[in-house]
């Protein structure tokens, strides 16, 4: 299993899509820093406490990037039949899938932490030039680290979900379409039909996980509702990730591989 994981870590890191996503993220975050520095003054983001908001805002694109990475790493291998070749070396599909998901999660989490570090560095000039507010304290530093870790874990979870969707759908396109339909149609329709269901949906719990307030308010088409606590949201997201991975394993074990 260790050898499989090591090989998959290399596979994920060597993929051009991984490198492209990394470069794009660094460029975008650097660009955000430049824009913030030149075009705004006395903005809450410019205070040290306001950096929280900056990191929180980065969670969504990082999660999306993680999902795309996970879906493409498996989907592309289905397309090129590299997955078939891999199965002639390791026929235990559940291991192959678990290793691939773990590799994506590790790479995404580490990359997300690195991206957030880049974002902080990009925003620091604006903080020093235009910033107002209190000096950093131990509590502030701890909360920043906690937020960064939660962002990284969310992105890692999204990459595992991406791998699961690709395994179920059999391609990157199917994974992206499935995720799009769920986020844009299923969740919105569910909230519109039963507003109180909002706090049980992935989107709301992801927000609760990042916000980390005791009872965050979730806004949606059906109105406003109280979200779960950070622990409850984290556990529910973990349950979804595990359930999807289990389903993906079952589907993959039964699928004929061409």
């Amino acid at each position, binding site marked *: 299993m260790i050898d499989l994981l090591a090989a998959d870590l*290399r596979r994920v890191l060597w993929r051009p899509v991984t490198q492209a996503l990394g470069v794009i993220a660094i460029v975008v975050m650097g660009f955000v820093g430049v824009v913030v520095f030149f075009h705004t003054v006395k903005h809450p983001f410019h205070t040290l406490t306001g950096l929280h908001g900056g990191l929180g805002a980065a969670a969504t694109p990082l999660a999306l990037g993680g999902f795309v990475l996970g879906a493409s790493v498996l989907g592309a291998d289905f397309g090129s039949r590299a997955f078939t070749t891999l199965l002639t070396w390791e026929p235990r599909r559940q291991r192959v899938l678990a290793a691939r998901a773990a590799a994506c999660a590790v790479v995404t989490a580490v990359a997300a932490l690195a991206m957030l570090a880049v974002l902080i560095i990009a925003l620091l000039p604006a903080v020093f030039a235009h910033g107002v507010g209190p000096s950093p304290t131990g509590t502030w530093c701890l909360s920043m680290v906690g937020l960064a870790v939660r962002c990284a874990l969310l992105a890692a979870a999204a990459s595992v979900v991406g791998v699961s969707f690709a395994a*179920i759908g059999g391609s990157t396109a199917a994974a992206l379409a499935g995720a799009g339909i769920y986020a844009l149609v299923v969740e919105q329709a569910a909230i519109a039909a039963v507003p109180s269901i909002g706090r049980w949906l992935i989107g709301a719990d992801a927000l609760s996980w990042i916000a980390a307030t005791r009872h965050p308010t979730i806004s949606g088409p059906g109105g406003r509702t109280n979200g779960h606590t950070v622990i409850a949201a984290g556990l529910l997201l973990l349950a979804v990730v595990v359930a999807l991975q289990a389903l993906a394993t079952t589907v993959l074990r039964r699928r004929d591989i061409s």
Partner: protein
Amino acid sequence: MIVLLPVLGLVWWFVIRPSTKRRQPTRPPDTTGQAPPPAPAVRHPALVVGPPVVDAVVEMIGVTKAYGRGDRRRLALDDLELAVPAGGVFGLLGQNGAGKTTALRCLMGLVGPTAGTCRILGSDSGRDLHRVIERVGALIETPGLSPTLSGRRNLALLARLDRIGATGVDRALRDAGLEDRADDPVATYSLGMRQRLGIAAALLRDPEVVILDEPANGLDPAGIAEIRRLLVSLARDGRTVIVSSHLLDEVEKTCDRLAVIDAGRCVAVGPIGDVLATAGTGTLRVGVADLIAAQRVLAAAGIESTVTDGALRVRCAPSGAAHVTETLAAERLFVSELHHDRPTLEAVFFGLTSSGAARRR
């Protein structure tokens, strides 16, 4: 998350449940206590020639693979029986769509058979192939490689699974003749280069059993000859090589044994010489000055012959040539030409398969 439940339910209903039904055995175990119904008769017995295989390295026992359901149900494999002995090159011969690749996919656990069992080195392909996978190398259909990665990195990723070092990868690339292009993306490789890289990947861990599906696909004549030499040398080293092909000439030149697959069934299996012998012993072409006299002399000795294209044709094995020439020489009829035309694999193939039947019609 609640919304996910019906989504997961739909996936279960449409994706998992059908495949579960598909995998139900065609002959369920008897739980009624009554006498089991008689097993269906084998509808298409294969022509088995030569001695039976003992201690088979690879076995396929009653393997059936069906795709689709209802009216669209199509049998890719139909009660396929195969036994491959250790050592030598075993050819799976069949026209396109005969079921060769599906058979090899079943063997490698990539496709689950609807019924039957596949075994490699004693392990069930569907359950515990991982126990012996280190002793098996396979190339199924076109090589499956990441096109964006270089040939070296593709091999390195596989090599890492068995802790094969960079030296092993370099040697495989050198053997495949890809040293110069090793660091180029596979997407820039020609079909022949990809095929060579795929074969290199299959041989990377020095396997006991080598399974190659159409290895000559996309190769030029020199490449095909190279593959032929490779297969023979692998067999000479004591490995068991299973190779599928629709190239009759290549199979005849390379394989020790062969199985002819037609419409998912094995229609003939055995040592290649014995399979060829099923089409007869061949004919002896005998050139003599006086054909009529020679024919009369042979007839008197109980040897039937015909006159065709300015020569006598005698149906007999090559060993019969001595008796023919001796009989003629005794009557001072001296042979000016002697040639044994053995039956070709093409003649045997078309005699056994549905494509041959279509031709005859």
